[in-house]
């Protein structure tokens, strides 16, 4: 079967119609949640920030750089700079970045290794003698395929089945620290105080 342009238009329309708009998008309260968190990035605001930075650079940084030059006009060596009183501490102290260095991919990276287990209709990870409640990545789901219960990612790929050893990156968080909805915690057992928020899942 080949598509001509009209069929392609109709096919795309049909497929686009499969999207179900969540009602939260139409709720003003949904957007109000972001009210205090978002930076003001309007053009006027950016212009004001850029102007301020420019003024600071001209009035403070440039004279400081000129003053730091040696008598012969050459900058001090890095070693020399570290030997000066006040260097190497406070805000000038060297910083070490931790975590994933890839752009935009910071996440909690604790490792949890255990057995994928079904408990009360939910998938948990059994470690030692206890079940760890997991908040799975967005779009993950569990389905029975034949006699197996499989864990699928958002793209429909199976990662593991119940009984498999799994490795999860992520981290523990206390439930009291977050205002999670009951929907996100529908699999939680009563009395659970901490959850493992999973980032990367390996079956």
């Amino acid at each position, binding site marked *: 079967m080949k598509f001509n342009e009209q069929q392609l238009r109709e096919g795309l329309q049909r497929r686009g119609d499969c999207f179900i708009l*969540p009602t939260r998008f139409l709720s003003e309260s949904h957007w109000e949640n972001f009210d205090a968190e978002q930076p003001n990035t309007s053009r006027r605001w950016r212009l004001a920030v850029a102007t301020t930075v420019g003024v600071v650079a001209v009035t403070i940084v440039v004279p400081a750089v000129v003053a730091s030059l040696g008598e012969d006009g050459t900058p001090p060596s890095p070693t020399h700079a570290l030997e000066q009183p006040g260097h190497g501490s406070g805000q000038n102290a060297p910083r070490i970045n931790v975590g994933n260095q890839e752009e935009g991919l910071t996440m909690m990276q604790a490792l949890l290794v255990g057995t994928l287990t079904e408990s009360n209709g939910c998938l948990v990870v059994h470690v030692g003698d206890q079940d760890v409640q997991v908040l799975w990545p967005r779009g993950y*789901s569990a389905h029975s395929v034949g006699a197996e219960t499989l864990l699928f990612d958002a793209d*429909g790929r199976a990662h593991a089945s119940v009984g498999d050893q799994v490795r999860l990156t992520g981290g523990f968080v206390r439930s009291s620290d977050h205002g999670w909805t009951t929907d996100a915690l529908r699999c939680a057992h009563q009395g659970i105080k901490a959850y493992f928020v999973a980032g990367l899942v*390996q079956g």
Partner: protein
Amino acid sequence: MNQRAPTGSFADFVQDSAQRLGSLAYLVSGNQASAEDLLQETLLQLWRHWEDVPEGARYSYARRVMVNKHTDQLRRLRIYRQYLRDSQTTQALIDVGPADSLTRIDERDELARALKQLPPRQRSVLILRYYEDLSDIDIAAILGMKRSTVRSQCARALKRLNNVLPARESPQ
């Protein structure tokens, strides 16, 4: 700080355009969960720049933001997968095929299957031309490519689409 929750005209815009934008997100991203995320990020960016974007250009602005955000996400995903391969911290995923009903519907949809096999840029060109009915000039502006490149990408995409489809239907 005069930032405030979007109400009034922004709410009207969401009311009028979110379904259409969500469908576009669904087409470019390929699944409901990713489409919701993409729509959320797009609308948030529009909200942040609401006063900067002329009233008549807000839908096209959102559309441009969405397509470029998706391209950016794919780029990051490629980097991440490369990172995983390089660090040998992962093993091959078990691909046992679709499981849930939505995925099964997708797999039955020949067009959806074929679209997934296109490179992202070619897929975007097709969607913008045949779903959004945009001209080559508009598509070129959104994707940051020449008009001639849009035409060639579109031709390649159509050819590839038509090559993929009969191959899937031929008997084993």
